[in-house]
């Protein structure tokens, strides 16, 4: 019995020591920490975000570090779960004592962790969240980078309006970002006097959209707009063909913008419209865009998508703020991030009074011959959009 007690005490002490490692970093390092979804449903886009940040860390260390100190990036897995991410930020800020924080991926997780970063007054550039409501709660330490989710489908609505299509169907996944995108689309449709004949949500686990699409067909919709991530956008595209439903416009958020969309769907992906924050298209004309694409492609063997671009851009902005402040003091950083006005390869960073990046707009592309070609807004247009989409049986056979 005595042995047992001794053993258990020893085990408890050992466990406690393992569980609470003091920040193991060297004092001369600048530690940048955050939660990221290494596993779980967000791991794909979150991985791109991580790649973008990694590229920056390697570069900044090569050019001598931040304020003369080496930078270390500490990203911990939040399992794509908001409550885990909350615990992680608390740990990073109070136990690991990181110097700077980076944001998690996805709107729900950012929404959840914003309370923690706010409590510890740690400024954060949210490169993985586009939902405006996160900034509508009087928070002072969170800064937007990307264009608002409400605007994702704006381009598609405007094209529909211009072509004189009247009946719009909007479907979206039941989650923070997709919902905001769908609501935005409905708002713009109303503004242009279009009729929203269907607005429906589906759960995150949905893979079978056939009944929903039959409904779209029965309602005789001209355009289908999807507030979607990858799976749902791909499944809807396939099932549109299976059910032989011909739409004049089919536009979706996120999904079509991922390289895998064209790879997986092949010819089915043709003509799908997709919204994007950014595309690896030098013609966008942002400063350093060409160099960034090249550097990224060299390091990771593929062109960056917009998530990777955001991850990299957020780090550039943070770097700039630190340089301007001349120290890692969080209040000073906050002040810098509030008043910074900066152009990067990704576009303009300039936040409004609520901390949201007002300088950033959305783009719309169409997949043509397997390539994403910008079609909206007109000033960035590469080619004119092909609308109405050709009927399934009028397309060249595969």
């Amino acid at each position, binding site marked *: 019995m005595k042995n047992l007690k001794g053993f258990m005490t020893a085990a408890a002490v050992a466990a406690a020591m393992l569980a609470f490692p003091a920040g193991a970093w060297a004092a001369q390092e600048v530690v940048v920490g955050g939660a990221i979804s290494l596993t779980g449903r967000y791991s794909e886009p979150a991985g791109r975000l991580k790649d973008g940040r990694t590229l920056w860390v390697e570069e900044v260390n090569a050019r001598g570090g931040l304020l003369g100190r080496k930078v270390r990036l500490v990203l911990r897995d939040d399992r794509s779960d908001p409550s885990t991410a909350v615990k992680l930020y608390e740990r990073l800020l109070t136990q690991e004592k990181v110097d700077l924080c980076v944001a998690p991926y996805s709107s729900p997780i950012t929404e959840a962790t914003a309370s923690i970063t706010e409590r510890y007054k740690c400024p954060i550039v949210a490169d993985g969240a586009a939902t405006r409501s996160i900034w509508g709660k009087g928070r002072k330490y969170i800064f937007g980078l990307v264009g608002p989710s409400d605007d994702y489908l704006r381009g598609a609505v405007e094209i529909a309006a211009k072509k004189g299509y009247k009946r719009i169907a909007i479907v979206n996944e039941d989650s923070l970002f997709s919902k905001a995108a769908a609501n935005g689309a409905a708002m713009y449709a109303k503004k242009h006097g279009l009729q929203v004949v269907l607005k429906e*949500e589906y759960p995150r686990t949905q893979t079978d959209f056939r009944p929903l699409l039959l409904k779209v067909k029965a309602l005789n919709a001209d355009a289908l707009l999807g507030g979607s991530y990858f799976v749902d956008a791909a499944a809807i595209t396939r099932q549109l063909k299976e059910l032989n439903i011909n739409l004049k416009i089919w536009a979706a958020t996120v999904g079509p913008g991922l390289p895998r969309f064209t790879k997986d769907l092949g010819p089915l992906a043709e003509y799908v419209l997709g919204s994007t924050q950014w595309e690896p298209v030098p013609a966008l004309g942002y400063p350093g865009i060409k160099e960034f694409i090249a550097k990224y492609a060299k390091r990771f063997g593929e062109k960056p998508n917009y998530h990777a671009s955001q991850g990299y851009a957020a780090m550039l902005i943070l770097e700039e703020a630190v340089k301007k402040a001349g120290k890692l003091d969080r209040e000073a950083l906050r002040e810098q991030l509030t008043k910074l006005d900066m152009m990067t390869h990704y576009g303009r960073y300039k936040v409004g009074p609520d901390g949201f990046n007002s300088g950033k707009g959305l783009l719309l592309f169409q997949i043509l011959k397997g390539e994403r070609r910008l079609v909206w807004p007109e000033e960035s247009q590469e080619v004119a959009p092909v609308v109405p989409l050709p009927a399934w049986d009028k397309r060249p056979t595969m």
Partner: protein
Amino acid sequence: MSKRALEAPAAPAPASLAEELPAGKAALQLAAIALSLFSFVLWPGLVNVYQISFVFFGLQYVVLASSWNIISGFTGYVSFGHVAFFGIGSYTTAILVAKHGWPWYLTLPLAGLLAVVWAAFIGFPCLRLKGPYFAISMMGLNEVLRVVALSWESLTGGGLGITMPNAENSVSTYYAGLAVAALTVAMCYAIAHSRFGLRLAAIREDETAAEAMGVPTTRYKMYAFMLSAFWPGVIGGIVAYKLLYIEPDSTFFIAITVNMITMAMLGGKGTVLGPVIGAAILYTAQELVWWYIPWLHLIAYGAFIILIVLFVPRGIMGYLIDRGWVAKGVIQ
């Protein structure tokens, strides 16, 4: 079972259980409890916020595993959806705090109470189901709640979840969690050492025989189920407030149920201390593995569950009991 007892069975037996313990041993036990409580009370003063939270979430699992133990360990009805009560508590607190501005601590009794109401509501029909059917029904009902929380947007915010106003809450929630954990364990102790607890165990061992031997099984199962729902509801409320954000998928998360079960099993289900020990060990181990080898974490956990079930089904307490280090039974 001394010789004296065998020779003179008519000798006056002690009037209560406490008297049975030698005074020294009882004092030692009391001292141990007081000491551990005392160190838990001091803890926030000694460490940083993360370490407070670390222990807090451990306490959360002490509450959850101990509560699950009441219906499933003592009574033998395997609740495979116990996180539902946790979720109800979470949403009660979150809604009242975020939308109606209640102080969080006032919402807790209501959080527990609503969980009990739900338990009473579903327990009446479900506790008639036997074995696997009860387990499946609990799992199904948890999914029902999850989908309702997802779809009833006006109340729950749907998939958007609910954000509560920011607050400095680490220490206050810690003490609340500590109090709830202490009360839960105390309740389990009281149940285990009462005839109520023995009758629950009788239901677990043989429901028909228990009923034939005068145990009003239907009523007792209901009581056990409702008791096992209360504290998860309360701790659910505290956790929601601690995180300041909840959403359906991670609130009605089946993995939390499995955690409760595995912890109770590891420590030894049907005992008072088992779930506490199991929660402490498994929670610490999980945090460690996940922090250092995230990709392995769940694979290792799955393997761990299988190993426990196959090789130590009666848990640590069971092992100690078999070794004779801990007495069999609570009434001696």
